[in-house]
């Protein structure tokens, strides 16, 4: 049997670097002179970034007022008491008074916040019909089974919009009043209720079904409103551009939150005299308290916030960067000490050999 080195057999594998494991490889060999500056630089960079983020976050103003009205907080307690047995009577209204000690830099964003409300519950979050909400006429009167038990109404009529998310639409409404100094009458602060939903939601995902004889109400004939709604969907707002499925409050609500404590944008304050911000003084929020939260021990709050390049007020990222940066620098120092201490030892050993 001959073993010829030159004849290339049919089974012989390719003699390339790839197939013969001869690819060039490189590995950085970290020494103290690379690792130490790296740690120190990284630590300084993180600390710098952390400080920047932290101070930016601190400079953002945020005010929260709980208006659930449980007996200890005092506000809106009458409506809250009515809520204890079920939904409060319609149009129960209350007022929330607060005062701003200093100028609140605008534009000011007005949110409502709910707590202990699990919009991320799986059965809840699948309970809607996207085809119906996209305005397809065929889907309007055939809501999907996921919407059950909010699929068909009492009279057997299909519910539009169907599902639990739509049914639990937040229906408190707010108005902000400013007391003109000195102790003058209360003036309403104009709230800009447009542009609070995502552009894609408003213009792409949610669309009204095609108008019938120019009327939205006729387009929805043969459907019923969700059981908890006082008015049908085409009467959500007097503004014809903001009613039906494209109503901004409705769209904001349908975009379910990821955590049990969440905020949703209600309005922006950037019109008229208040476009620069809210001057100091006394304010009052008039709340139409409709939404019952006592049953699941939830809380309702209104939040005023200003926005910066990093969004709302959140010191966490700044603090995280500061912590990691200091850990980096601390580790760098420890390594430096170890290096200095044992460097001499190494030199001694080397010189012995």
């Amino acid at each position, binding site marked *: *049997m001959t*073993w010829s080195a030159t004849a290339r057999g049919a089974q012989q594998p390719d003699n390339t670097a790839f197939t013969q*494991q*001869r*690819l060039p*490889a490189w*590995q*950085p060999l*970290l020494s103290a002179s690379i690792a130490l500056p790296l740690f120190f630089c*990284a630590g300084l960079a*993180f600390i710098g*970034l*952390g400080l920047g*983020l932290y101070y930016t976050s601190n400079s953002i103003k945020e005010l929260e007022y709980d208006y659930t009205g449980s007996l200890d907080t005092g506000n809106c307690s009458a409506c809250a008491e009515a809520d204890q047995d079920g939904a409060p009577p319609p149009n129960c209204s209350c007022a929330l008074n607060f005062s701003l000690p200093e100028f609140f830099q605008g*534009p000011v*964003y007005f*949110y409502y*916040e709910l707590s202990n409300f*699990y919009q*991320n*519950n*799986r*059965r*809840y*979050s*699948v309970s809607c019909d*996207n085809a119906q909400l996209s305005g397809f006429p065929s889907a309007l009167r055939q809501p999907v089974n996921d919407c059950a038990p909010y699929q068909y109404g009492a009279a057997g009529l299909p519910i539009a919009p169907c599902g639990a998310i739509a049914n639990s639409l937040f229906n408190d409404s707010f108005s902000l009043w400013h007391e003109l100094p000195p102790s003058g009458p209360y003036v309403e602060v104009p709230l800009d209720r447009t*542009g*609070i*939903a*995502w552009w894609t939601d408003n213009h792409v995902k949610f669309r009204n079904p095609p108008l019938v004889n120019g009327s939205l109400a006729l387009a929805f004939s043969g459907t019923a409103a969700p059981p908890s709604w006082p008015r049908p969907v085409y009467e959500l707002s007097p503004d014809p551009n903001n009613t039906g499925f494209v109503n901004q409050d409705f769209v*904001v609500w349908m*975009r*379910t*939150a*990821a*955590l*049990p*404590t*969440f*905020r*949703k*944008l209600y309005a*922006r304050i950037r019109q008229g005299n208040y476009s620069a911000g809210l001057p100091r003084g006394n304010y009052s929020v008039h709340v139409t308290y409709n939404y019952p939260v006592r049953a699941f021990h939830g809380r309702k709050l209104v939040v005023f*916030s200003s*926005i910066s*390049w*990093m*969004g*709302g*007020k*959140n010191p*966490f*990222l700044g603090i*995280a*960067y500061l912590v*990691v940066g200091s*850990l*980096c620098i601390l*580790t760098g120092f420890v390594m430096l000490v170890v290096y200095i201490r044992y460097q001499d030892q190494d030199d001694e050993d080397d010189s012995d050999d």
Partner: protein
Amino acid sequence: MSVIVKSATGEIYLFCKGADSSIFPRVIEGKVDQIRSRVERNAVEGLRTLCVAYKRLTQEEYGGVCQLLQAAKVALQDREKKLAEAYEQIEKDLILLGATAVEDRLQEKAADTIEALQKAGVKVWVLTGDKMETAAATCYACRLFRRDTQLLELTTKKIEEQTLHDVLLELSKTVLHYSGSLTRDNLSGLSTDMQDYGLIIDGAALSLIMKPREDGSSSNYRELFLDICRSCSAVLCCRMAPLQKAQIVKLIKFSKEHPITLAIGDGANDVSMILEAHVGIGVIGKEGRQAARNSDYAVPKFKHLKKMLLVHGHFYYVRISELVQYFFYKNVCFIFPQFLYQFFCGFSQQTLYDTAYLTLYNISFTSLPILLYSLMEQHVSIDVLKRDPSLYRDIAKNALLRWRVFIYWTFLGVFDALVFFFGAYFVFENTTVTSNGQIMTTNTHMVRRLWVCPFSVFLECITNKIFLENIFRCDSSVCFVSSSGSLPPLCSL
């Protein structure tokens, strides 16, 4: 082994060849003593010896032989035994012809290979069918035994003088009192004052050790024998029948530490041990392809074993173990946040990630980096591995897949998962991240926007993990920092 031939003139002869120890007993005529001394001299010089004998068969004798063989060949029961008995009967009363000696030169770089393997912590045993003198000479030539190696003999000669028990006890006393738990391999042969032991054992002695006894003392002999072997740097087993070679391999495989065994051979008589060992390697050589056909790997030359084990074996082990550990790690990292999320969604099985991410995570997002790693990774370059065989000890005894390493990776996975989940949770809790005030913390059917940013962070961290492991090589403190430090910079996107 015999052959029966008929000459042109019609005479029938039986020619027999074999080892001297099996031919001489059957010989009744010939210059036995002369040839015996000649054979011994040849053996000491390292030549492989054989003796040849013959006898003449008459027609009746031939007929009888044929009948005997035929009866044995078609026997339905105990065919092997009947054949052996038939051969015994036929091959006797022979006339000695002479002896042959073959110089079986060592393959090139055989000594180098064996030395490298010993430095790498691999115990090298030689199992051969040759005479003791031949085999010992060969072992000296290939540097299995050094000049200062003290040879201990467990051969038939010695057992004739003392009982097996005594021999074993004496050997174990000699060897074990030196060791404690230090063996020569631990010091990789650097210490000169450590006495080096080599054991020579005979096929007959081995069968005595392995023979089952009524009082169960054979298991003690085996244990004792294995203890002695463990303390010796090299073992030479000579006069081994093929089945005995397999027996020894089996004995080692099931000994206390369950070592991984590799058998390499080039002839048909090595097939049984190649099949028995964990890894069988056949050398395609002058003795045909029988060994290669039965092996797991076939190599053209013995010297290829060095690169095969020290380079390729090392690479493959590191790659596979990292692959396995990484797979567990990335899935822990992936699913643990999902588990944590249940505490925040009312335990309603809401998924943290979109279905697309769930499906594609293992298939496309995290598959390519580790695939390339496990195909190409060279943690140490090839020439360094070849130059320094003791690097092979880094992976001895399955070092990278031990419990401790696995728990380290799992703990790292849990830590990373906690950082990912709670980092994202606190960053996105209650805040807006857009400049027009619209809320980003929303989802529709599955949590999407909230977790896309941390998901991409998380992906980058997972893929960087390979990179980091490569650089930092299980330097745990640095990994700690780098894993936690990777979240903020990537989250600020």
